[in-house]
């Protein structure tokens, strides 16, 4: 234990941390964390870990004039100690910040703000995905390890640029591959609550994920070995890599060349990225999956209806989805409010529509991608017996957005509906025939839902899938039940108006 403490003291005390070290540490941490995140996710733990590790190593063994560097301590030992410290700090801070982020989510969910995030605290239920993520963190971290020993600023920048480029290239290639493979097995999608793009998309979508994981492990091991060897080589060649070389004239001479190379490489990478993405989007837009076959009919993306194959569908309760997991097929994509295939759609949403191969009437339909939603044809939903449901509620169109800004678990934009009103509506209008064209020019929209446990549905932070009983449309100042033929009048209209005026939130 004492040896561990004294080892940590080498990095803390046997060198002088100056402002330049801290500034370079910030730059280093930033480049590493950006490379790690592949641009579109946050990995602040890696930033702080990389910054701290860099500053400690650089100020001690990384500098020629520190006390640590002047000790009769072999180069192999210096690199070994630094190597271990670097990995431990980097991974430890990554995990700490990851857990802190999860804890934050739990706290936010507990305070009722979970609706704003609409994700659960853990990304995966498959341990392999976590293992892949850790390997990715380790591999990326150690790509940058030799930078801690490079004194020459120009070489340091070149190395960081090259490592970031390598990491970005890997991310682009895996994204490209995973975009083209599509979903192999819809059952696996149901095992997670929130898709993490790289790990799930790359590891789960490609065939033989175990083989790819094995290859990836070998690549990471290779990176770790090479970075160790390179660090030793750097320390053994202070004239080539060290600071205070006294060759400023040489650096000035090559500065223009170095900058030109770096700018050219960055430009080529951006261009290549743009071309790849454009090609991917173009290819995507010609695939059958990228024909829009379903879209939402209202602004209520949780309980509101959608249209598919000319029919109206409502959100389905869980037990009503496809009985056989392997019988699904993709037949197109889903767009909220008619959103089209674009660069952002392909990168961020990519909501595909799945149907049961064995059911040509398409009783059920699933949306999988950024969102996970199950739908049932309105005509099938109408046939449900309501005797098993304990709570009935009416929701306005904006309830989910309003709920996101409330504190506590309570949801906004709802009113409790007396079962008598539901029965009256059912008796007067019977089985409603829903038409997509009725939703084209409405002024207001409300969903009537049924929950098995109504109180739990309102008080729980989780958005439960209800059975949709029906809906109210306001068109040209009149109120309709389900379609334009079912005009609400008389006492029933008065009772419904009381409900609409008394809505919570």
């Amino acid at each position, binding site marked *: 234990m004492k040896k561990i403490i004294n080892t940590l003291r080498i990095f803390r*005390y046997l060198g*002088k941390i100056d402002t330049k070290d801290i500034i370079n540490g910030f730059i280093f941490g930033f480049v590493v964390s950006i490379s790690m995140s592949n641009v579109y996710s946050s990995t602040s733990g890696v930033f702080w870990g990389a910054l701290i590790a860099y500053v400690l190593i650089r100020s001690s063994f990384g500098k020629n004039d520190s006390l640590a560097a*002047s000790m009769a301590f072999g180069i192999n030992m210096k690199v070994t100690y630094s190597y271990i410290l670097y990995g431990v700090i980097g991974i430890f801070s990554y995990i700490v910040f990851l857990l802190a982020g999860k804890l934050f989510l739990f706290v936010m969910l507990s305070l009722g703000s979970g609706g704003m995030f609409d994700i659960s605290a853990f990304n995966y239920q498959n341990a392999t995905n976590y293992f892949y993520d850790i390997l990715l963190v380790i591999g990326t971290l150690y790509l940058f390890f030799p930078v801690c020993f490079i004194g020459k600023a120009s070489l340091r920048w070149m190395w960081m640029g090259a490592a970031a480029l390598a990491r970005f290239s890997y991310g682009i290639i895996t994204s490209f591959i995973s975009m083209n493979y599509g979903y192999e097995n819809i059952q696996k999608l149901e095992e997670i609550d929130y898709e993490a793009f790289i790990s799930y998309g790359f590891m789960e979508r490609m065939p033989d994920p175990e083989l790819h994981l094995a290859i990836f492990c070998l690549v990471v091991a290779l990176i770790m070995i090479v970075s160790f060897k390179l660090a030793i080589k750097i320390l053994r060649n202070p004239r080539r890599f060290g600071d205070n070389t006294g060759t400023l004239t040489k650096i000035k001479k090559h500065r223009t060349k170095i900058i030109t190379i770096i700018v050219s490489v960055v430009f080529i990478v951006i261009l290549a990225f743009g071309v790849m993405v454009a090609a991917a989007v173009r290819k995507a837009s010609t695939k059958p999956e990228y024909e829009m076959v379903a879209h939402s009919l209202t602004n209520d993306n949780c309980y509101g209806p959608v249209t598919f194959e000319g029919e109206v569908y409502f959100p389905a309760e869980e037990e009503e989805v496809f009985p056989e997991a392997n019988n699904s097929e993709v037949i197109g994509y889903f767009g909220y409010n008619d959103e089209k295939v674009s660069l952002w759609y392909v990168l961020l949403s990519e909501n595909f529509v799945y149907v049961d191969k064995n059911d040509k009437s398409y009783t059920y339909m699933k949306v999988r991608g950024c969102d996970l939603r199950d739908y049932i044809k309105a005509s099938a939903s109408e046939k449900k017996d309501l005797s098993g449901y304990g709570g009935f509620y009416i929701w306005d169109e904006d309830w989910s957005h309003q709920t996101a800004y409330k504190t506590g678990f309570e949801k906004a934009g709802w009113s409790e509906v007396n079962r008598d009103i539901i029965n009256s509506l059912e008796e007067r209008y019977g089985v409603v025939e829903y038409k997509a064209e009725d939703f084209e020019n409405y002024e207001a929209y409300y969903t009537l839902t049924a929950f098995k446990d109504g109180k739990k549905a309102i008080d729980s932070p989780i958005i439960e899938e209800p059975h949709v009983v029906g809906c109210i449309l306001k068109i040209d100042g009149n109120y309709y039940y389900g379609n334009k033929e079912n005009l609400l009048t008389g006492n029933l209209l008065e009772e419904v108006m009381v409900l609409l005026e008394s809505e919570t939130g």
Partner: protein
Amino acid sequence: MQESAIVCSNIHLVQGNFEMENLDFEVKKGCITGLVGRNGSGKTTLIRLLAGAKVYTSGNIIIDGIPLEENAVEIRKRAVFVFDEPNFSLAVKPDVLAEVMKMMEPSFNMELYQSKMRLFKLDGKEKVKNYSSGMQKKLLLILALARRPEILVLDEPTSEVDPVSRAEMLDMLQEFMENEEHTVLFSTHITSDLDKIADYIAIMDNGKILLTEEKETLRDEYCINGVLPTVEEIMCSILRK
């Protein structure tokens, strides 16, 4: 012929406006060599080159028969370099630092360290940042001697040190030199220290070593009317030419 502990040949270095060109320098083994020169003449740069803290463009440095570029670790077992200011965190306590140094170099003499700390009345449990600059200089010398080097290179070790402590530090260097295999090179502006203990004087100016000569030889050479000059007078004579 006396062996050389340190040999620099044809050292070339450019650093901003300062240039060290074709510098040749030798430090005799078993002797104390004092390095003097004007401010900005390159004394500190030379010492840092010897320590490997700076890298020269071309040339050779051989310390105790070992080329610096071939085996710096082996050199560090035999030679200790002390800069003009601490090259470690001032937030550390000397006792902690000594413990860590002992872990890195098992030959570190903890008894010597403790006895010298008592001699200079330095509190090993007080952080270095709370020491005065003179106390820090003493600590640097103590830590260097505790590492049991054969060659000791110091950059202005007695500057900002009170006269009593300075005398004690010079006594420590002479005690160190009781072993004939030991060598000391130190740069200084306090030429009276060289008068007391130096065997050789090296004068540096504009990145060049003007001369390296035995102190007594120099005194005889610059003697005026039978009066032996001090190192300061010799230095001024040479540099004003």
